[in-house]
């Protein structure tokens, strides 16, 4: 087995193991796992509508995952993606409602607004870390709550109600074409924005000198300083870019899925799931595509389990968590594969 094959096998084996344990749990609690998994499969691939929704669900996960991964690569743990997403959501919705512009300008403007809002939210922990060495984990956790309350107040202030008006069609990512293609699903152009950002982050990290610096700082800030890099600037930059990506994830909701923003009674969870997505993908942009696809599909498809099989959807969360465990424990799977390999060679 080549390294490549093993790298591919590890996630596949993890998924199978996760599903297997999930099946055992289902049997143990009196459900029919076959029926359950058929429902799950149908929920993801059953028809064009579900496929459309699945892809739609993947878009924000892609961006949230990229945001976490990007910060990780420069040695920062951004738990604040959630808050950055919320402010991005609001900013995009606000621009979508407040302006009347041609689509060519309006949509990009709304997207940029979301990115900028997220970036600003990332700027605070970035600056505090760079200047005062305040741990970014605490600050980003706090910024999440601040985002939640501030945005709720802002929604009320600008709309006088619990939610913003609908955005103008000129700012919308929704597409008649995609929707018709998928039997009225909410699939929107956001997926292309998200994929484009996968390309952009990959480019930044792997091709630019900024990416080189960010990674260098992430691995060894002392050596980076010796090499003449501005470590503090890179810390701030990393948080800002990460925040911008998270803000764009919010734009997916504002301009695509919902077309407005309503007061949130709690976190969306997308930001936290982004941590899992990023780490499943080993913090590389391409890996994030894998993580987001897995996560988004299972998350969306799980809705069909109570629907079609009467199985509580928590079972899918259990399966997802197990898959994460197994992927993370890839080392042991590799060891097992290695042994298997040796035995085969011996024969």
């Amino acid at each position, binding site marked *: 087995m080549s390294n490549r094959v093993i790298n591919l096998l590890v996630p596949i084996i993890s998924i199978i193991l996760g599903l297997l344990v999930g099946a055992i749990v289902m049997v143990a609690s009196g459900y029919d796992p076959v029926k359950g998994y058929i429902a799950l499969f149908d929920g993801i691939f059953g028809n064009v509508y579900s496929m459309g929704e699945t892809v739609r669900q993947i878009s924000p996960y892609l961006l949230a995952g990229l945001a976490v991964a990007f910060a990780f690569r420069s040695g920062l743990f951004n738990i604040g993606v959630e808050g950055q997403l919320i402010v991005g959501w609001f900013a995009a919705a606000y621009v979508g409602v407040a302006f009347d512009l041609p689509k060519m300008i309006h949509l990009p403007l709304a997207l940029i607004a979301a990115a900028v809002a997220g970036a600003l939210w990332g700027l605070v922990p970035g600056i505090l870390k760079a200047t005062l060495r305040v741990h970014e984990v605490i600050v980003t956790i706090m910024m999440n709550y601040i985002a939640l309350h501030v945005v709720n107040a802002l929604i009320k202030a600008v709309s006088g109600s619990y939610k913003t008006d609908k955005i103008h069609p000129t700012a919308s990512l929704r597409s008649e074409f995609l929707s018709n293609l998928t039997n009225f699903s909410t699939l929107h152009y956001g997926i292309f924005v998200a994929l484009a950002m996968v390309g952009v982050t990959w480019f930044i990290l792997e091709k630019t000198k900024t990416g080189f610096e960010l990674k260098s700082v992430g691995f060894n800030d002392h050596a980076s300083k010796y090499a003449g890099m501005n470590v503090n600037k890179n810390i701030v930059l990393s948080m800002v870019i990460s925040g911008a990506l998270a803000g764009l994830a919010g734009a997916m909701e504002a301009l695509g899925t919902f077309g407005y923003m309503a007061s949130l009674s709690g976190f969306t*969870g997308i930001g936290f799931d982004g941590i899992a997505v990023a780490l499943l993908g080993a913090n590389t942009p391409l890996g994030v595509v894998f993580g987001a696809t897995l996560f988004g599909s299972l998350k969306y498809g799980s809705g069909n389990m109570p629907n079609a099989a009467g199985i509580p*959807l928590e079972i899918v969360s259990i399966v997802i968590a197990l898959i994460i465990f197994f992927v993370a424990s890839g080392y042991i799977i590799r060891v097992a594969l290695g042994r298997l390999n040796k035995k085969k060679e011996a024969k």
Partner: protein
Amino acid sequence: ACGTDKAKDTEKDTEKEDTTTAPEVNEGAISIAMVTDTGGVDDKSFNQSAWKGIQDYGKENGLEKGDGGYDYLTSTDMADYEANINRLAHRDFDLIYGIGFLLKDAIETVAQQNPETNFGLVDEESEVANVASIMFKEQEGAFLAGVAAARMTKSNKIGFVGGMEIPVIERFHAGFVDGVAAVNPDIKVDVQYTGNFDKAEDGKAAANRMYSSGVDIIFHAAGGTGNGVFSEAKERKAADKDAYVWVIGVDSDQYEEGKVGDENITLTSMLKRVDIAVKLTAELAAKGEFPGGTITTYGLADDGIELADSRGAIPDDILAEIETFKEKIVSEEIVVNKDPKAKK
């Protein structure tokens, strides 16, 4: 629209006939389903109540849980709303409810895509032709709660703990303050919004502050945060059997929640009978009188809103007085304020 659906429905029912032994299926019955908001179907609040209405309708008409009968789907986050409604639409239910104001856009979107299906929306107003909006005059019930509180208080200090400042909660708030003022304008209502529905510790601290400052009755409209209000009151009661502390529950009868040994600190609860409204709307639809495109507002007049049995906590004379106020509201002699900021 209903006619065609019914044809399909009876087909299904006959298919089912041989596998199940459904007791006298009402031929004219329609299949109904609902999508919860993120509270889930047993939130002890309007989701639970709506589900009760749907079950009641189903049982009365001999329907089974599942396709062609009645069912629900739980939403775990906002993105689930539309997907869930769509799932139910794909399963050909005749009438699909969205429970909670947050589901408005999702209901409208799917309704427009499925003009043949009927939809119900609770707590929000929609003008889409195949959507029946069900609204409640929470302020009217809150008003009566206010009357009860104002009469029962010994300290002349009353509290209101709200969750987030959103229109529904503000209706509770406004009505309650109105009701208190109607009895005794000198009583100050201590109002506090915690900004969340899921932080019991905040509800608890707010209640603690209020009780500590002399408040003896608190009306909460704060979901899970309200749990904290109850736990604070119960602790006070547990510590001192003679403590005079009360909580007024919301949405469903929260009597069970108020038990402290043999005592109970739930004064009463303001009930929002989503179940009645949901069932009624289904019955109309079955008769071909589905109120699509219109807004039906339930209040004291049609028992859509009421106070729960206080189980003796409120003496009869006060109950009588509450009844008088109720009649005045029903007869529109009193129009209850529904916006706390619109000071009269």
